[in-house]
């Protein structure tokens, strides 16, 4: 894109600057639209599972419901509790929202369609997702109220616990792909299964860690059954109890942007990103743009997220910790050993045993 702006007669620095800003806007604005629509999808899926209608009043089929909610929230008054730590109280939703957007910089939507194609893409995502806990802790502490504070404590313990197993699961994929770069990881999945199937999920060693990744992703984004941070029967609304108006909406948007990020990550790591599911040209699906495949797979995962939300009851907190530390951590560590052993034994890295 830099070349295009240079051809308009700018010098390199300005062209780079404008191109980067344009790239960021090209990702962030559609993402916001996607978040608005995905909230609608979420509510429709729950409604369908609960045999209800869901939002159906605003716009055709209720499609504009999220925008109506957004407008309502935008017009409300922002209330800051008098005992709150003002600066951090305002900063917390901004941090949550910004961090949720930052990770999208390295997500490849199609071959070459990525804002920053960096070598350590997966590590970058891991680093950014570990930052997202700060928004919640800051909100919980700055509210100066006990329920948000309990929620913040729970959130930080939960996210640290599940990050460990997510890290080990990523190591398994990295060992197979031999790279941290997300584009390389997707390309390494081309024809992975017998030269026919695209995607690590069809590998018998990687399928179990995909299942663990899905469950850890639920915990990492604090979705049901792991939404202990906003368990309304215990903690009112958790860390966002004291928030109103736009500051509340920013938490909401950040939460859903994080869920979409996890969907994108599962698509990239296990389901071959923008590649069609099969690598043979039986039907002309290579003519379908990669972006369509990418969003289709993301949408499938999002459906699974809402499906879980509508059907599974909430965990108890000690069960959550037990699952993270006593089940997922040893299991994912075991799979790291197993996968690296298998790769060395079969001479994946050229050095056959």
């Amino acid at each position, binding site marked *: 894109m830099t070349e295009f702006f240079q051809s308009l007669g700018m010098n390199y620095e300005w062209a780079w600057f404008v191109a980067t800003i344009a790239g960021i806007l090209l990702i962030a604005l559609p993402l916001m639209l996607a978040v608005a629509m995905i909230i609608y999808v979420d509510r429709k899926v729950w409604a369908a599972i609960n045999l209800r209608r869901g939002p159906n009043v605003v716009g055709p089929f209720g499609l504009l419901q999220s925008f109506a909610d957004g407008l309502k929230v935008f017009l409300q008054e922002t209330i800051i509790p008098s005992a709150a730590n003002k600066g*951090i109280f305002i900063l917390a939703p901004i941090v949550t929202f910004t961090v949720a957007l930052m990770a999208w910089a390295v997500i490849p939507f199609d071959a070459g369609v990525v804002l920053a194609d960096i*070598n350590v893409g997966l590590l970058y995502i891991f680093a*950014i997702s570990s*930052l997202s806990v*700060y928004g919640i*802790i800051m909100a919980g502490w700055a509210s100066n109220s006990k329920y948000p504070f309990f929620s913040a404590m729970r959130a930080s313990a939960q996210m640290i616990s599940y990050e460990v197993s997510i890290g080990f699961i990523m190591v398994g994929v990295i060992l197979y792909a031999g790279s941290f770069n997300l584009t390389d990881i997707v390309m390494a999945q081309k024809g992975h299964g017998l030269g026919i199937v695209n995607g690590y999920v069809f590998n018998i060693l990687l399928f179990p860690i995909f299942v663990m990744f899905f469950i850890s992703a639920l915990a990492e984004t604090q979705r049901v059954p792991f939404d202990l941070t906003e368990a309304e029967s215990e903690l009112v609304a958790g860390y966002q109890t004291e928030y109103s108006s736009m500051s509340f909406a920013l938490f909401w948007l950040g939460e859903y942007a994080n869920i979409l990020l996890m969907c994108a990550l599962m698509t990239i790591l296990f389901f071959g990103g923008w590649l069609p599911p099969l690598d043979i040209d039986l039907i002309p699906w290579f003519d379908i743009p990669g972006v369509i495949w990418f969003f289709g797979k993301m949408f499938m995962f999002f459906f699974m997220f809402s499906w879980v939300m509508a059907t599974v009851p909430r965990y108890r907190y000690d069960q959550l910790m037990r699952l993270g530390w006593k089940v997922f951590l040893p299991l994912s560590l075991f799979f790291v050993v197993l996968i690296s052993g298998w790769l060395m034994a079969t001479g994946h890295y050229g050095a056959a045993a």
Partner: protein
Amino acid sequence: MIQTFAFYLFAVLVIASAVMVITARNPVHSVLWLILAFFNAAGLMVLVGAEFIAMLLVIVYVGAVAVLFLFVVMMLDIDVAAMRAGFMKNFPLGIAIALILLAELVLGIGAYRTGAIELGTPLASDAPAMVESNTAAIGAMLYSKYIVLFEAAGIILLVAMIGAIVLTHRPSKSKRGQQDIGKQVRRNPDEATVMKQPTVGEGVEL
């Protein structure tokens, strides 16, 4: 131009937030400023081309260490006035530490000016190839030249981990009670609930 701008942005932010760490009155604010300092230090690492180290800095320090730090500081009930009272008592110690740090800084800058350290002549094969990414270069270094040190560090961490587990381990028959997870999972509605049809005015007898 972009790099220069980015360098000064990160550098100024690192120093400014480091100053705020020690001047902020609220300890939680101090930790948050410290996190900002870590983050900008990672930015500086990216600028010198050490993106792997930069990401590890964010993951380990910002993502894990600082969270626990924040956790502890938030739960402490710190009385700032009581801390101020101890200020004059610890003043000589503080000055001594500051002087040592200053001396070390001066020494460090002086040593840096005289040139690189020469503990041995590098082998030609040890020079990292410029084509590979720095993740691969660090891996090749760690698992060949520094393998003994690397393994030693690993064993120390393992011992520390086992120590932590031993310290927090509770024997299965402890006085504080225990959970039988298998029993909890096996529990079903038949053994946990009973259906009663109470007669009016009498209630349920269990």
